[in-house]
Structures are given as structure tokens and as C-alpha cells.
């Protein structure tokens, strides 16, 4: 039963998360609230791990979430379910490629949902903040990181290492 649910939920995410990467995050938060397969704090860890390991973030997240939920088989199932809608859709539009990209309604929908997707990502950030910004120490670290990122943001990995060290030093 858990496998059917897992496949169904990740297929849905694959179908609705348009724009890639962090866009899958808000959908995963919905999952954590609905099924308690993983907690919000675990999801935050998952995002960090996905950002600092090779491979597309969305895939990493699905693999990790699937593993936490139902082991190795869960991993495979969640990841395959996540990519299935994309493969199907791409197969279909490969046949009508030019028409699709230039269709006025497709264009309208794609530009129209962009601000909503931003709101979704911000909302996901709010959920992560609720479990990670818990006192003065974490608030100060957040301010420092945000400030630093305005000046240098080539390599995200560096910030994850720095904040891990800060976490140990400050005993967050």
C-alpha cells in the first residue's frame, strides 16, 4: 500500500512541479504534512544534502524521501515516478515540438504561473525557517549568510560547509 501511495504522490509532483529544482520543495512539504513519512526538519536536511551532492536536486530529493519512507525499493519507485510524467509529456510534445513552444496559451500559462511558483518556494522557505531559525544564534547566522550571499554566490557548497562548522561551534 505504501508503495502505491509513494508512486502516486511522486507522479503527481512530477506532473505539477514545472520549472525544476527547488520547485519540488513546496510539494514535498505538503507530503510531510499529509503522511508524516518524514518531518519538516528532515526535509530541510534533505534539501541541504541534495544541494551538496551531484545530480539534479529534484531527483536527489525523491530518492532521499523514498528511502526514508520505504528503503531501497521506495527510493527507486519515488524517483521513477517523479520522472515518468516528464518522459511521457516529452514523448508527446516531441511530435508537436514547434507548435507547443509557440502556442499563445501555453506561453500565457507558463509566464502566468511564474509568480505563483515564487510564492510556493517562499512558503517552503517559511516552513524550513520554522524548524531551523529557533533562537538568537540561528537568526544571527541567517543574517550573516544572507549578507555574504549578496556578495558571493558562485558555489553553494561552500555555504553548506561553513554553516555546518558554525553549527558545531555555536552548538545550534
Amino acid at each position, binding site marked *: 500500500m505504501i508503495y502505491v501511495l509513494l508512486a502516486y504522490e511522486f507522479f503527481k509532483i512530477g506532473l505539477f512541479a514545472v520549472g525544476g529544482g527547488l520547485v519540488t520543495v513546496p510539494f514535498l512539504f505538503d507530503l510531510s504534512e499529509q503522511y508524516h513519512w518524514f518531518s519538516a526538519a528532515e526535509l530541510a536536511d534533505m534539501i541541504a544534502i541534495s544541494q551538496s551532492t551531484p545530480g539534479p536536486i529534484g531527483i536527489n530529493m525523491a530518492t532521499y524521501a523514498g528511502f526514508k519512507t520505504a528503503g531501497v525499493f521506495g527510493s527507486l519507485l519515488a524517483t521513477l515516478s517523479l520522472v515518468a510524467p516528464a518522459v511521457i509529456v516529452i514523448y508527446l510534445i516531441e511530435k508537436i515540438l514547434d507548435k507547443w513552444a509557440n502556442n499563445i496559451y501555453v506561453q500565457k500559462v507558463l509566464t502566468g504561473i511564474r509568480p505563483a511558483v515564487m510564492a510556493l518556494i517562499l512558503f517552503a522557505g517559511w516552513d524550513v525557517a520554522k524548524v*531551523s531559525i529557533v533562537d538568537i544564534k540561528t537568526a544571527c547566522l541567517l543574517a550573516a549568510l544572507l549578507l555574504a550571499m549578496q556578495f558571493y554566490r558562485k558555489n553553494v557548497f561552500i555555504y553548506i560547509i561553513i554553516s555546518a562548522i558554525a553549527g558545531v561551534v555555536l552548538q545550534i
Partner: protein
Amino acid sequence: MVKLTEIYAIFCKMGLFTFGGGYAMLPILKSEVVDKRKWISEEELLNYYSIGQCTPGIIAVNASSFIGYKLRGISGMLCATAAVITPSLIIIMAIAAMLQKYMGNQYLQWAFGGIRVSVVALIICTVIDLWRKGVKNKRDYLVFFGASALLWLFNLSAISVVVLAAAGALIPNFGGKKS
């Protein structure tokens, strides 16, 4: 005709050397598939990327599927897709298994406490970047604040928000009412 094993090997490599996914993959993909092997032209690659961005799913996977299809039809598409996710599957499963074992460790917990803070910072920066690129007119503001209100006040699910925003985008001259 390009061999399936070759497609698998190249896209496996792509999955392995891409940190951060999506756009990070573009330069590597260009050098491997366009410059070195001349499987597709640069223009085709950019086309695949822009379409991959607007179709459901992960951009990197979508771009790989397109290229695979171009090279070998359906079998090429499935092969490229499977290849690009293989490294993630192996690496993340190993990390997840290790974490479950060591998560009781106090130092690891502190480290992850710090890392979570950086995730918040990263998400905020992503939204700022997207905002600079994407929010231009009244309609965009309306959709953004409308979607935010639905999320915060009414606890709507992410899928409903996407569907509503898409429906709102199709209403001609909408400006007064929110999706």
C-alpha cells in the same frame, strides 16, 4: 547510429558531475554533446532547455530525454533518462543509509542545525533572483500576493495553487480578480 551504451555512459557522467542540477548542467552538456560529439547543435540544445523548463519535471532530466529521443527514439530517451538519475540514486541511498545510522551523534546534529539555516538563506536568495527576472507588471504582483495569501491564510496545497494560477493566466485581461 549512436550506441545505447554510449548514451548511457555520457548521461551517467552528466548526472555525476552536476552539482545543483538544472542550469548547472548546461555548460557540461554543451561541451560533451555539442562540441565534442556533435550529436546536436547548440541551438537545439538551448531549445530543449527552454522547453524542458516549461514541461513538467526536472529540467536536467527533460533536456536529457529530448536528446536521447533525438538520437535513438524511445529507447534512447529511456536510456538517457535512466542514466542521468543513476548516480543520484546510488549516492543518495548511501548517504541516507549512513545518516540513519549516525544521526544520534551530537556533533552531526549541531552541524545539521547550522546547515538548515543555510537552506533558508539559499531559498530566500533563489526567490530574490526569480523576482528580479520574473516579476514585471501589476498582474505578476497580483498573482504573487494572491498565491501567498492562499498559502498562508487558507493553507492551500501547492498543486491547487499551480492549477489556479494556470487558470488565472488564461482569463483574458484579468487584472481585477485574482486567480
